[in-house]
């Protein structure tokens, strides 16, 4: 995998992610109730609305323009930490359009890491995002296809999100809860795993293929 992704392909990925979030947003809010303020599902729904709108038919055909638009409008979701962070992430990806998909994701991550000190282990979205992007990189270095890479990324994100159950929060609202955050997966990490699951579903959907890459 070192192909550039097209606007349509990324649009399908976004649509897949939006479907995933729409089916699971209640669970995201429930997770956020356990150690946060219960709004994460609602914020993710609004975030996906903005993303879909940026890739809606009739809009620009330029992936960079679409991603910039997506980033800005996700920043404008006004939903607290997660929408700001995801807005930064998509804005960072936009700046790397022209490079391959892995590089774009890496650029998004780099932008994000300028805004937050949270790293894997801190029980935040980073616990899903960093392994997912590492998986993309390994897949690319190993010559796998985009489809295969996205499959690996989704699996890594899910594993990372699941593992947050055993961590104590050190960032975001939940940090003040300390030990009480043990036993619940981090909502932000969980939604990242849904996003990557959806990216894969969306990327593969049109080709009508089965899920086993």
């Amino acid at each position, binding site marked *: 995998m070192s192909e550039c992704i097209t606007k349509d392909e990324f649009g399908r990925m976004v649509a897949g992610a939006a479907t995933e979030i729409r089916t699971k947003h209640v669970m995201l809010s429930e997770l956020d109730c356990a150690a946060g303020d219960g709004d994460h599902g609602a*914020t993710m729904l609004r975030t996906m609305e903005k993303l879909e709108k940026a890739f809606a038919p009739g809009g620009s055909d330029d992936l960079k323009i679409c991603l910039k638009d997506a980033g800005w409008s996700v920043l404008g979701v006004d*939903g*607290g930490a997660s929408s700001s962070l995801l807005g930064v992430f998509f804005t960072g990806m936009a700046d790397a359009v022209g490079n391959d998909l892995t590089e774009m994701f890496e650029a998004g991550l780099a932008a994000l890491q300028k805004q937050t000190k949270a790293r894997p282990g801190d029980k935040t979205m980073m616990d899903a995002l960093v392994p997912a992007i590492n998986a993309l990189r390994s897949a690319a270095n190993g010559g796998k296809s985009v489809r295969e890479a996205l499959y690996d990324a989704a699996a890594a994100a899910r594993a990372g999100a699941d593992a947050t159950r055993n961590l104590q929060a050190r960032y975001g609202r939940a940090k003040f809860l300390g030990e009480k955050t043990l036993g619940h997966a981090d909502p932000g990490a969980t939604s990242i795993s849904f996003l990557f699951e959806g990216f894969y579903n969306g990327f593969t959907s049109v080709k009508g293929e089965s899920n086993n890459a």
Partner: protein
Amino acid sequence: MKKFINKPENIVAELLEGFALSHPDRIRLVGNNLVARALPKAKGKVGVVTLGGSGHEPGLSGFVGEGMLDISVPGEIFAAPGAPRCLEAIRLAEYGSGVLFIVLNHAGDVLSSNLTMEMAKREGLNVKMTLTHEDISGGTNPEDRRGLVGFLPVYKVAGAAAEEGQPLNACFEIAERMGRNMRTLAVAVQTATHPSTGQAIFDLPDDEMEIGMGQHGEAGTGRMKLKTADETAEIMLDMLLKDLGVKAGEELLVIVNGAGATTLMELFTLFRRVDQILKAKGIKLVRAKVGEFITTQEQAGFQLMIARMDKELIRLWDAPSNAPYFVVR
């Protein structure tokens, strides 16, 4: 949940509409649901902008007015607004001498305001950001200290300085000086329900209270059996005085801020004990404010804030204001 609302997704828009309509001579909504003064500040003065989640009324937009804030950027319920609207507010509050951006230390707000500052600088806007973080329950690391009702004196003194025409640097220094000299501690006894989800934001046994509880039910460290008003005031004031290192003869501003369901009756009773203790220690209580300035829905509990004042801070605290929920003649 027994709240008078309509569709949960419209809460913020509707409450802002009602707020503006109830003060048509003083408040109007501009741009993307920004709360601004009806009569903008005179050209050449420093603009003062803040941001923060909704659901804490009258905080923060209740303090927009002559002598306090120029624009507040309300987010969704308990959620920071994003950078785009903050940037819009800063552009609008640029009257020719720069903008002071006052941010309460909460993760989402800090994230948005850092992004806003980057964008504002890229646009060449003249902005200085000041962070309030006076909640001593966060430990000794300033990053872990949240911004609670201390925003009120910061808005007041910085707003007054801006109103009287002081330059941006001076307004910033005043805000920082006020910020360095204040400390807050919160206690909660009863949860609120989140107006969008209808869920209780925390649990607390029937006979317990929690010292250090944050603005949104973020847990503190001091869970204990419910105490009397006097005992509670003693415990909390003691922690605050120690942390700020207050000595006899110094002059303090004290704020007692009700969380929502705690009555003024209780706040006065608590304040009375604070006054007694300060008198006994020879510390001068020079100004006080008792009421609801930042709430968390129908949560019960209160925040106790102390701030070391100097002549100029007192003068600015006393300066006129016509903010709807902080009128000073």
